[in-house]
């Protein structure tokens, strides 16, 4: 069979590979980067998980790693609320189904064993570690030191779980030390302070890993073993391993005959970011390159902050590593590999690195994806895009993410969709947000580009510079069956009606969109997401900025995994922040605010920017109520929230109309 056009372009990525005695159709490994939390509290795989895994199996990856299962009956290794277990044969039937799905798709099936160690014991009052080193994150359990008997038992449980995975039909297993799990905490001198043969020197600290590898390899000599190891813990300033030590541990693993090393970066507790949106793609590639140099005879898989198949193809071509390991980009778009193979990369819905997936997992919720509203709902027919029974003419008010997500979903179902947008292009308020984003604006622009490409491909008609109002609606009366109001939200300027000098206040969304120019000294009213983005951007561009927030804290509406980033920017940029403070009046010299005790503070400023509260643009619901058969709304037009809610609501409405 001749190669598809994208396979010829990305020839390195799509060349066949091997893992042990198994042949992989390409050099792409689906990484078990994120536990789904879709399963039962006692470790059984659910239909929801099976449906999700079927999608994963169909991604087109040459190797599929199934998410990490904890190997011990006590649950000391259990890190996530609804994590799967593999400590007993009673769990096997569902693993057999998953292995079959993966094989049916033509991929090598790997089962990950995840003993979370320091981050485990979620149902217990403790976690286990090589030594008692207290937690640095309150989220996790107090540690208990493992005895030598515990260590021996733990290694045995890993080997038993590995054998069970093979019995279920998997081809190989993976043991993970990702982000500080048990294996990592034995390897690291931050958490391993033992004085016996398992602690102290690098040789001793690596003993647990070597015994673990030996135990599994002896039990399963014919089956490949993958080990995930840190190329950099990012914990060295707190006594963790240096990069040199990390690579020495990799050499130890390679020396023990592991078939593949998957290179990871960072610990949960590390003081710097490793996989978030603020880390540029390719940033950590050097670690994979070094791993390949240090362990030339061992396959190296790598993918941390490497979401782009084109970049991965180049790296593979240069021999920097052997397999591209990818997960989150395939959560965002399970068709990524197929689109790459068909030279349709421009249609890919990119992972924007919001870490919504992990934010939810660490709140003990099932993971979801900002960009893929169907993720986790594969088992529910209601979330599937199916041909509409009645093809309708649909008008959409607003070309922001909610309106566009609805439009492309409805168009895929066969509806005839026209979008009316008062601006000149797709994007809505996301464009302003992207223009001022300090992390990685291209991630947010990619959302806009995706909608532009898909609207064109699906024949969604775009009518720009069109203000939707009753007069306009009368002009198109009876032309549409459905109207969807996705007009977003605005800053509620009425909230400042009582403020003396309110006419001097400008709207943060106008500032973000470039419709208003601000001065050199700016007061931003509202420490929410909108206010923060505007304040940070203006400060970065040289303005003197004061952030005034009525509440106790700033960033209350920011996704948990990104709050720290905004807090950090506010501090780094030295943005003066006044919480529990309200605006009193505005004068020609600036703003006068009052703190919680009522004490007034004058802040010299030439521009006062209102960033909150926000108010939904809901007026059209009333205006259009008697003018169209079906009237719906989605996104911020219903209630001001964010990108995640906009996309998900747009999709849910799109599959239903």
């Amino acid at each position: 069979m001749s190669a598809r056009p994208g396979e010829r372009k990305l020839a390195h990525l799509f060349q066949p590979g091997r893992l042990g005695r198994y042949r992989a159709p390409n050099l792409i490994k689906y990484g078990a980067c994120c536990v789904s939390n879709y399963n039962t509290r006692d470790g059984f795989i659910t239909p929801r998980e099976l449906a999700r895994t079927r999608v994963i199996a169909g991604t087109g990856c040459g190797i599929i790693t199934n998410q990490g299962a904890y190997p011990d009956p006590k649950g000391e290794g259990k890190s996530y609320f609804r994590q799967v277990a593999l400590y007993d044969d009673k769990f096997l039937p569902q693993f057999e189904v998953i292995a079959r799905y993966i094989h049916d798709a033509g991929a090598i099936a790997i089962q990950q064993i995840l003993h979370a160690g320091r981050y485990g014991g979620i149902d217990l009052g403790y976690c286990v570690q090589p030594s008692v080193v207290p937690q640095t994150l309150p989220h996790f359990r107090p540690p208990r030191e493992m005895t030598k008997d515990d260590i021996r038992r733990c290694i045995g449980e890993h080997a038993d779980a590995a054998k069970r995975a093979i019995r279920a039909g998997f081809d190989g297993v993976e043991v993970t030390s990702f982000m500080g799990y048990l294996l990592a905490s034995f390897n690291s001198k931050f958490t391993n302070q033992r004085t016996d043969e398992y602690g102290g020197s690098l040789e001793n600290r690596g003993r647990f890993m070597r015994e673990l590898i030996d135990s599994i390899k002896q039990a399963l000599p014919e089956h490949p073993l993958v080990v995930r190891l840190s190329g950099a813990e990012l914990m060295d300033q707190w006594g963790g391993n240096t990069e040199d030590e990390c690579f020495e541990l990799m050499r130890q693993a390679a020396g023990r005959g592991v078939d593949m090393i998957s290179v990871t970066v960072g610990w949960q507790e590390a003081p710097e970011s490793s996989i978030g949106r603020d880390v540029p793609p390719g940033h950590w590639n050097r670690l994979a390159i070094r791993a390949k140099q240090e362990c030339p005879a061992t396959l190296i898989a790598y993918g941390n902050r490497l979401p782009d198949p084109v970049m991965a193809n180049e790296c593979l071509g240069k021999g920097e590593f052997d397999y591209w390991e990818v997960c989150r980009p395939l959560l965002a778009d399970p068709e990524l590999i197929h689109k790459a193979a068909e030279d349709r990369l421009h249609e890919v819905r990119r992972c924007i690195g919001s870490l919504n997936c992990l934010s939810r997992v660490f709140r003990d919720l099932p993971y979801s994806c900002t960009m893929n509203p169907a993720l986790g709902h594969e088992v529910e027919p209601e979330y599937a895009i199916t041909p509409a029974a009645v093809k309708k003419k649909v008008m959409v008010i607003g070309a922001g993410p909610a309106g566009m997500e609805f439009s492309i979903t409805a168009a895929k179902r066969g509806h005839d969709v026209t979008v009316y947008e008062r601006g000149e292009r797709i994007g809505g308020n996301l464009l302003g947000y992207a223009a001022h984003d300090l992390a990685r604006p291209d991630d947010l622009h990619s959302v806009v580009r995706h909608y532009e490409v898909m609207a064109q491909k699906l024949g969604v008609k775009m009518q720009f510079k069109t203000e939707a109002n009753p007069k306009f609606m009368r002009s198109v009366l009876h032309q549409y069956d459905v109207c969807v109001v996705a007009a977003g939200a605005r800053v509620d300027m009425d909230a400042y009606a009582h403020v003396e000098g309110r006419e001097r206040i400008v709207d943060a969304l106008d500032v973000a969109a470039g419709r208003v120019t601000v001065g050199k000294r700016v007061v931003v009213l509202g420490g929410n997401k909108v206010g923060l983005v505007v304040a940070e951007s203006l400060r970065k561009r040289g303005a003197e900025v004061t952030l005034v927030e009525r509440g106790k804290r700033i960033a209350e509406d920011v996704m948990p995994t990104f709050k720290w980033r905004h807090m950090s920017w506010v501090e780094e940029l030295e943005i003066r922040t006044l919480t529990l403070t309200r605006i009193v009046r505005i004068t020609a010299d600036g703003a006068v605010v009052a703190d919680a005790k009522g004490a007034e503070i004058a802040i010299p400023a030439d521009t006062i920017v209102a960033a909150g509260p926000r108010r939904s643009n809901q007026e059209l619901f009333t205006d259009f109520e008697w003018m169209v058969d079906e009237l719906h709304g989605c996104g911020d037009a219903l209630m001001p929230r964010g990108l995640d809610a906009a996309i998900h609501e747009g999709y849910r409405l799109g599959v239903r109309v």
Partner: protein
Amino acid sequence: MLSPVIERSTTGKWQRVLDRHPDLFAEVTPGASIAIVARHSQGADGRRRANVMPVTDLVPMLTWVREPQGMMAREGEFRGLKGLASDVLLIAAEGALEAALAHDHPLSELKRQLRNGKMLFMVMRTRDELRERGWSDFIETLGLPFLGTCR
């Protein structure tokens, strides 16, 4: 040279810092405390070491302890993690505490240091116990719930 955190002058300075933030510690229960040690100190053998490691010698320590009159800065001795009665341990990199005290807003500086790794925060109790002992506001203010989770 031993850590400057035990010097009387700095204890007094930290007391003034605590006095500026009574709201932050309003819910903290009597007897609850935070211990602060410098990351490196010299042992009797003259070798420097990180205090995350087990210690056998006494290391000077600052504590913020809740007393009837409010949050008080006290001097103490760190004997290692196992013997520590405090609820929270802050381990400061060299110069971090001095830098915080020199700052107009020392607690803001501590927060910044937590983010950039100049200060390590260790919890000696469970999350629920910390909440019951009134540390929620302090922990929230330092931004600790937002750290971690695969950044």
